[in-house]
């Protein structure tokens, strides 16, 4: 792993170095053109024209393995995926990325951890009445006044003008407060929720959703490592595809629902419209995933599930009817050929040399 990190550092240094050299080269050429009397802009354009702009830089990077393909080669050479640190590193990076993209990272962390990060927030409670559709609709003035006289609660205040927030008195359990509130107000629909949990639901992702996403990540990594080598290759492939699709679609959904909940909708109608648009976009994402999965499956050998490589193009593109162009792809084990013509694509098994002789 240390060698891989060194190689990565070297790769990054190479890129930075070539970029600096390229910029220096361009600047010097532009200076020469300016000395000849060209304007600054024209000199820059002329320098780029003479030196080939970024194309030469790309060529140089490709030649020295400083491009992205080079990075992939480095990873394969150092067998990064076989390292025991690979999966934890990917998981940590994925979690960090999700938290970075999350509109309410603190709420997300608290939702996953199951308790507030700040000690001072641990006794904070959210109290409101839950409607039949499970949304919190606020509490009445009479109920709010009843809460103020409860012995287990302190600092009872209005929260977002319609709900209530309070602090649990030290030594009082959450269950005791819950029963006290219902007994005192006589309202069975009143709910007492820890404030961090309420914020985690509204502002951050739901804990279960993130746990499911994490499970999908682990499942995908495990099935990805299996590389479809054994008899369970179809199961591994299915698991990998399922986990990957769940991961992508749920992450998209989690971010979308967070954004939706953060927008202050003017009316219920616009909120519903926004939700419908979001749902349609989500369905579009799922459809796109299915399309990508189908495309991926078609490009794999039905026997070993390896990618079909080694393409050969036959036919003449101009001779559309008599000799149509087609591309044949074969897997590395020679199991079969995927023939893709302009009209159709089909899989047929590779004939053995003996069969070819017999048929010939």
């Amino acid at each position: 792993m240390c060698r891989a990190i060194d190689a990565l550092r070297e790769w990054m240094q190479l890129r930075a170095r070539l970029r600096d050299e390229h910029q220096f080269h361009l600047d010097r050429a532009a200076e020469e053109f300016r000395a000849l009397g060209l304007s600054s802009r024209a000199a820059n354009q002329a320098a780029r024209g003479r030196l080939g702009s970024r194309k030469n830089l790309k060529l140089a990077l490709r030649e020295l393995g400083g491009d992205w393909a080079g990075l992939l080669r480095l990873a394969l050479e150092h067998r990064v995926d076989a390292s025991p640190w690979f999966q934890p590193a990917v998981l940590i990076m994925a979690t960090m990325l999700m938290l970075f993209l999350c509109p309410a990272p603190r709420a997300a962390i608290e939702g996953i951890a199951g308790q507030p990060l700040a000690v001072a927030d641990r006794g904070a409670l959210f109290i409101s009445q839950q409607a039949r559709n499970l949304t919190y609709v606020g509490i009445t003035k009479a109920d709010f006044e009843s809460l103020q006289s409860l012995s287990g609660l302190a600092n009872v205040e209005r929260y977002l003008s319609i709900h209530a927030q309070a602090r649990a008195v030290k030594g009082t359990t959450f269950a005791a407060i819950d029963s006290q509130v219902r007994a005192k107000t006589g309202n069975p629909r009143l709910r007492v929720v820890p404030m961090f949990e309420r914020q985690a639901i509204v502002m951050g992702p739901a804990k279960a959703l993130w746990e499911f996403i994490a499970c999908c990540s682990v499942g995908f990594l495990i099935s990805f490592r299996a590389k479809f080598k054994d008899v369970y290759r179809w199961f591994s492939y299915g698991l990998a595809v399922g986990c990957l699709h769940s991961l992508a679609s749920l992450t998209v959904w989690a971010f979308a629902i967070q954004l939706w909940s953060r927008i202050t909708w003017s009316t219920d109608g616009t909120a519903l419209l926004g939700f419908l648009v979001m749902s349609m976009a989500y369905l579009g994402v799922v459809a796109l995933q299915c399309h990508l999965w189908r495309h991926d499956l078609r490009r794999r050998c039905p026997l070993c599930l390896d990618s079909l490589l080694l393409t050969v193009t036959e036919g003449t593109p101009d001779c559309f009817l008599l000799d149509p162009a087609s591309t044949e792809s074969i897997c590395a084990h020679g199991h079969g050929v995927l023939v893709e013509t302009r009209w159709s694509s089909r899989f047929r098994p590779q004939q053995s040399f003996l069969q070819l002789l017999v048929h010939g």
Partner: protein
Amino acid sequence: MAREKDSAGGGLLQGTLDLLVLRVLVAGAFHGYAISRRLAELSEDWLSVDEGSLYPCLYRMEKKGWIRAEAGRSENNRKARFYSLTNSGAAQLEIEQEGWQQFQRAVSRILKKA
């Protein structure tokens, strides 16, 4: 390798860029742009080595220990990387020059006798 100036040529034979760059660096330490300009001047603008070929060549030679790169300031006080010849680079230059002369003699003989 290099851009062709016309149909008559201007391209470099495979491997000759190393020889040319090493030979240029005998005169002292230069940055990449100066090496490129020097090659163009010495060849009377017949050879034009772009940075897409030059910098990979410099990088490879540095890795082999033929040249060393040091950070410095250019004539207009800009940060630049200056390349200079090492002892092993000087030895390599001798080898490359010898190889080139042998190649040149062989081609000349063929052209004369064929």
